[in-house]
């Protein structure tokens, strides 16, 4: 049924249709309305045969799911930001042991400084933790990806993070087609685990592995990701057949066929970028974009094929990796090596600063003069002033405080 609904509520409805058997979460992780809604559904009996376990931390939340998954249950949780960091050790354990847990990340920045707004620092901090990472452009895509995530996770025995931009999507009301239980049931078979704790047939999970075998176990983890590259498009096609809606698979091009310049981005900013592409196309400019849905595994071949016509590839990233920057651009550059294409990193949308059409227009105007990486909308006047002050005064104090004060003095971005 098509509904005007909050993103978090829509995701909760989709997860409910996937018939999870154990949901475990920490309620102030920071959280969205997703698990709150699911807990109410479990309590009311609307979500049957499901145990909702409220725990004392994110570490406990995922550890409980590791145990539940080992016992053969379909499992789900959600977290974001610092909550994901607190969960980190279990994040690696879940994937290393191959438990097909599905987890929503309501993407938010990581402190310090404290900031609860949207960017991709949290999920990017776990990009090498061995989970599949899928990023949603809209709440419809978030719903559809969750349903595909359970199927993918369980088919490979590999956990999947569905990354949904915090606030921008999780708190947005928009039209979403909520699938019926019958549709989801016909798409998602019941969980048939490849490993399960069974007193009749005792096995050992979490075995210690020495130098003689650790590398091989790790390689087989990587090999699952290689299989995920094949499996994700197959599942997307089957999703389309069952639900009658397009599923993007690994990545999706928009006006890419003849594009001379192609934008590459993850998540909700693709919507704004598509509007930008339309405006530029109306002026006869050959611009297109590639939405990366799967960031882990990284779909190098698909990116190569979608970016084929482009001379310039601009990667817009909501993540600033100090000391290197442009981690998405680095991987796109790797995918396009020897192609002669210019790959540009653009860091923006950090800590909730919106990536607006006006910002993209400004970027476009400067496209032949961009530094590598380019910092979209960074207030250089404030940066200069704070650095100047640090040079003058040894005890210049906390940087966050200096910047906030300087922004207040000089003006700059202010959210309405």
């Amino acid at each position, binding site marked *: 049924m098509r509904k*005007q609904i909050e993103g978090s509520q829509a995701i909760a409805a989709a997860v409910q249709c996937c018939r999870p058997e154990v949901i475990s979460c920490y309620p102030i992780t920071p959280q969205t309305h997703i698990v709150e809604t699911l807990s109410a559904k479990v309590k009311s009996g609307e979500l049957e045969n499901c145990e909702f376990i409220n725990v004392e931390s994110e570490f406990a939340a995922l550890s409980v799911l590791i145990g539940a998954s080992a016992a053969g249950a379909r499992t789900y949780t959600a977290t974001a930001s610092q909550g994901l960091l607190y969960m980190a050790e279990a994040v690696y354990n879940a994937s290393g042991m191959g438990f097909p847990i599905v987890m929503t990340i309501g993407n938010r920045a990581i402190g310090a400084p404290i900031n609860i707004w949207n960017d991709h620092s949290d999920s990017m901090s776990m990009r090498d933790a061995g989970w599949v990472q899928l990023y949603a452009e809209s709440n419809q895509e978030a719903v559809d990806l969750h349903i595909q995530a359970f199927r993918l996770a369980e088919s490979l025995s590999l956990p999947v993070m569905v990354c949904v931009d915090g606030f*921008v999507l999780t708190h947005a*009301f928009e039209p979403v087609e909520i699938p019926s239980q019958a549709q989801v049931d016909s798409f998602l078979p019941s969980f048939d685990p490849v490993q399960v704790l069974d007193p009749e047939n005792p096995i050992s999970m979490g075995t210690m592995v020495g130098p003689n075998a650790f590398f091989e176990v790790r390689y087989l983890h990587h090999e699952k990701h290689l299989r995920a590259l094949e499996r994700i498009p197959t599942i997307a096609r089957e999703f389309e057949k069952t639900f009658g809606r397009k599923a993007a698979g690994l990545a999706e091009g928009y006006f890419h066929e003849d594009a001379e310049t192609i934008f590459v981005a993850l998540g909700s*900013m693709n919507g704004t970028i*598509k509007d930008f592409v339309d405006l530029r196309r109306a002026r006869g400019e050959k611009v297109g974009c590639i939405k990366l849905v799967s960031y882990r595994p990284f779909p190098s071949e698909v990116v190569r094929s979608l970016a084929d016509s482009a001379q310039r590839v601009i990667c817009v990233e909501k993540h600033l990796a100090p000391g290197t920057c442009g981690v998405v651009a680095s991987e796109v550059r790797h995918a396009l090596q020897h192609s002669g294409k210019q790959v540009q990193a653009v860091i923006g949308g950090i800590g909730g600063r*919106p990536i*607006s059409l006006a910002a993209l227009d400004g970027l476009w105007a400067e496209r032949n003069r961009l530094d590598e990486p380019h910092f979209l909308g960074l207030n250089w006047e404030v940066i200069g002033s704070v650095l100047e002050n640090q040079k003058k005064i040894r005890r210049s104090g906390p940087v966050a405080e200096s910047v906030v004060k300087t922004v207040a003095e000089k003006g700059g971005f*202010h*959210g*309405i």
Partner: protein
Amino acid sequence: MFQVRFHGRGGQGAVTAAELLSVAAFNEGNFAQAFPSFGSERMGAPVASFCRISDKEIRLREPIEHPDILLVLDPTLLHHVPIFEGASENAQCLINSTHSVNDLGLGQTPVRLLHVPASAIARDVLGVDRPNTALLGGLAALCESISLSAIQDAIRSRFTGEIGEKNCAVAQKAYAYVKAEVGDA
């Protein structure tokens, strides 16, 4: 695309109002997107919320910088927050106030100002100062594309029973007030 920006304080219902407007617009066959100014979920702190309405799918994810309608839930914000900033040409601003717009001391503004005593209506009907549904009723009086009945249906879908009906009555009263104000009673 038609864009509405709500300015209020945490607890007044600005976020709920934007969501209800999006539901009303959706029920009338439009595409709609509503979202809050993110993060400032504190009682009394200035908050903004947004609603876009269009006959096409809405992909844009930026805050509304060029609103066609501004709804001000708390008039004390008029002197603290750059409410009129970016307002589109021919924008209208509906302010929750018992004072007429000439008495608000705003001087020349780039937008057409209107007022509705939303808090007074809410106190009268609901017994509490919750001006959001009154402003939605007032909004329906200003735009042809959103009907009062769609607003009332959206209110009923969120608040069942007596609270829903009372809020519908609030919207009705504010609608009539603004209709009279614009000389369209």
